[in-house]
């Protein structure tokens, strides 16, 4: 077009994709997209939680005994770490929205570190379960000497433990990957009051993964009292 040199009334934001009318529409589409994705995730975990509920009823004693093998102190500490990461994540969204570039980067890095701590602690827990012979399947060597009849049920509990926390950890690892990408973009100065949807969407995802853990912690660690 010949009028390219003329000053436009609304200069296009560099991150406005061409199929959107304006930044507002693009922002709303991104956040709605993430909410829809989280709806899918709720049903994804929901099927697993449903199976957990069925077997907890079927093997009540074994599931109680299974929870005894979890160290609730470590679990509680990890819960606090994760909630802390949600706080720094929320602050990162706020910082991006108010165009505080440095603060955005710092808060995202803090979130990354806290997420890393959580995963590290989880690895430690997995390792000690493995040592005890509690990993289900052919490696399962644990026998409950007091109540040998519970052993099969405890293996089922550990299946759910590894399945649910493993699925959660996989989501955390994806989140860590996304965080690294966000940190690079924030450092580059991509975000500001007009354009911060990626950080907000990342935040929605991160909070969701935290909330899943808020359900997992009592179900797997605390329900033996």
């Amino acid at each position, binding site marked *: 077009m010949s009028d390219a040199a003329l000053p436009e009334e609304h200069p296009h934001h560099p991150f406005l994709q061409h199929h959107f009318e304006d930044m507002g529409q693009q922002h709303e*589409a991104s956040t*709605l*997209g993430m909410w829809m994705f989280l709806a899918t995730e709720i049903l994804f975990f*929901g*099927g697993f939680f449903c199976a957990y509920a069925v077997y907890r009823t079927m093997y009540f004693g074994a599931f109680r005994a299974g929870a005894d093998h979890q160290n609730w102190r470590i679990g509680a500490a990890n819960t606090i770490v994760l909630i802390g990461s949600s706080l720094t994540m929320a602050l990162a969204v706020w910082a991006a929205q108010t165009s505080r570039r440095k603060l955005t980067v710092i808060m995202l890095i803090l979130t990354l570190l806290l997420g890393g701590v959580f995963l590290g602690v989880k690895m430690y827990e997995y390792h000690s379960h493995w040592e005890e012979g509690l990993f289900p399947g052919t490696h399962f060597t644990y026998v409950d000497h007091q109540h040998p009849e519970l052993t099969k049920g405890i293996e089922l509990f550990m299946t759910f433990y590894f*399945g649910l926390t493993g699925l959660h950890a996989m989501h955390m690892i994806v989140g860590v990957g996304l965080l690294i990408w966000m940190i690079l973009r924030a450092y580059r100065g991509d975000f500001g009051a007009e354009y911060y949807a990626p950080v907000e969407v990342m935040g929605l995802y991160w909070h969701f993964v935290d909330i899943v853990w808020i359900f997992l912690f009592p179900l797997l660690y605390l329900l033996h009292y």
Partner: protein
Amino acid sequence: MTSQTIDDVQFIEPIPKRNYLNVEYGVFSWLLTKDHKRIGILYLISVTLLFFVGGIFAFLLRLELLTPEGDLFTSDTYNKLFTLHGIVMIFFFLIPAIPSALGNFILPIMLGAKDLAFPRINLLSWYLYVIGALFGIYVIVTGGVDTGWTFYTPFSTQYSNTHVFATTLGAFITGFSSILTGLNFIVTTHRMRAPGLTWFRLPLFVWSIYATSIVQLLATPVLAITLALLMFERVLGVGIFDPGLGGDPVLYQHLFWFYSHPAVYIMVLPAMAVVSEVVAAFTRKRIFGYSFVAFSSLAIAFLSFLVWAHHLFVAGISVYSAMVFSFLSMLVAVPSAIKVFNWTATMYKASVSWQTPMLYILGFIGLFTIGGVTGLFLAALGIDVHVTDSYFVVAHFHYIMVGGTVMAYMAGIHYWWPKITGRMYPEWWARLGALLVFVGFNLTFFPQFIVGYVGMPRRYHAYAPEFQVLNVLSTAGATVLAVGYLLPMVYLLWSLGWGRKAGANPWGAVGLEWVTSSPPPKDNFHETPVVTWDAYDYPAFLKAMKETQHV
């Protein structure tokens, strides 16, 4: 109204030289495209290929059933054939066919948008579909799988020596393709509608696809986690569903059908979407009871989540819960019947033009009604127990899936073919094809109702000799049906080169997709359209078109 009809209002401006098909060339311009129209075509090609793969299995099954003795295939091979037929047809054809191929192409244009909200995710979802399908092909080539498409445990986890893991992984991956498509459609419908296009001005196609997307989004993840648990059990040997290890096989069936019954509506709601468009276009009338048809789509989507246990009437669930699910299953008939009655009422006293899409849709309405009413038989507890695992069930769901979804898919392909390709298909051949499909279909599946009711079980390669006459009829019908499906392949491909050039609005229909040129430009419209008419409001649409012409 003036004497001028809608056909007279055509685009005065010449058809633009550049459209989405010739704006760029080369393999990578297709494989890396973010244009929803090109992705729709990628889907169209891939689902058509897999439809013929699934069709070959169906044909082999019918060939075996020509004679009562199991003389063509061993029972093991036969088990693999019906399993692969089911898996390929359901996961790789019926579920993506209308939404991902036709919906991808038409939905954003109907909304007056330049593209779907997330074009890259749209491309990703096609790649996920292809990866899932490649797992399916791998399984077919390396020896198959024999669990039935339902993967019932503990057979699938403990006893089957076939490729259960690869198959379920393929279905798992394809599931995410379906989820992402649904997500994209929901966000696009909410956020990308053209100015003036309010919810109650939307074409009913959009309402129905929207309802489908909700089911895809909320049901598919449950299948994903169920198949993940199944793979977990099969690989680690832990007892999630195997009763021998303390698991509960009925829980597997609950979880599986929590997806797979709503999946029936993932297959049939898009078919209903096509029906509404075609009926309005070929009767030149607004669909009778627009808002009832719109809300019945949402009602079907909602109720679809509450009926799954009618697949478990003989699996040992309690009589009380069976009665509840029996009642809820019958409720689904209400919104479905509303649709059928409203389409029929639209045709009442209309001057219907009998072009190919309309012929397919007439077939749809008749066959879907038979499929739906026999569905009520099956929802009734006593009859279900009598005919469970018989050919009656097979006939019932083929009336819905083939008589319903495939008929509507064929109607949709013909209806939007001029928009997609810019060429008309040859009408005479297409009518012949529609007739062959209708006759072939009924000849194939109607005898199965009878043979099932008198006691022929499904999933066996041999049967009692007194069933042979009906089975021969069925196989003969399958032959006619095969010709009916192959014929469009020939004349549609022919029309790409030699078909008559189509104008922007060859049917004289109302809708944004008929405002833009055929084939549409890359961004769908030369400028963002403003909608001033209600859906299927012929006078208002005509007036709006005249105004834009005579400025």
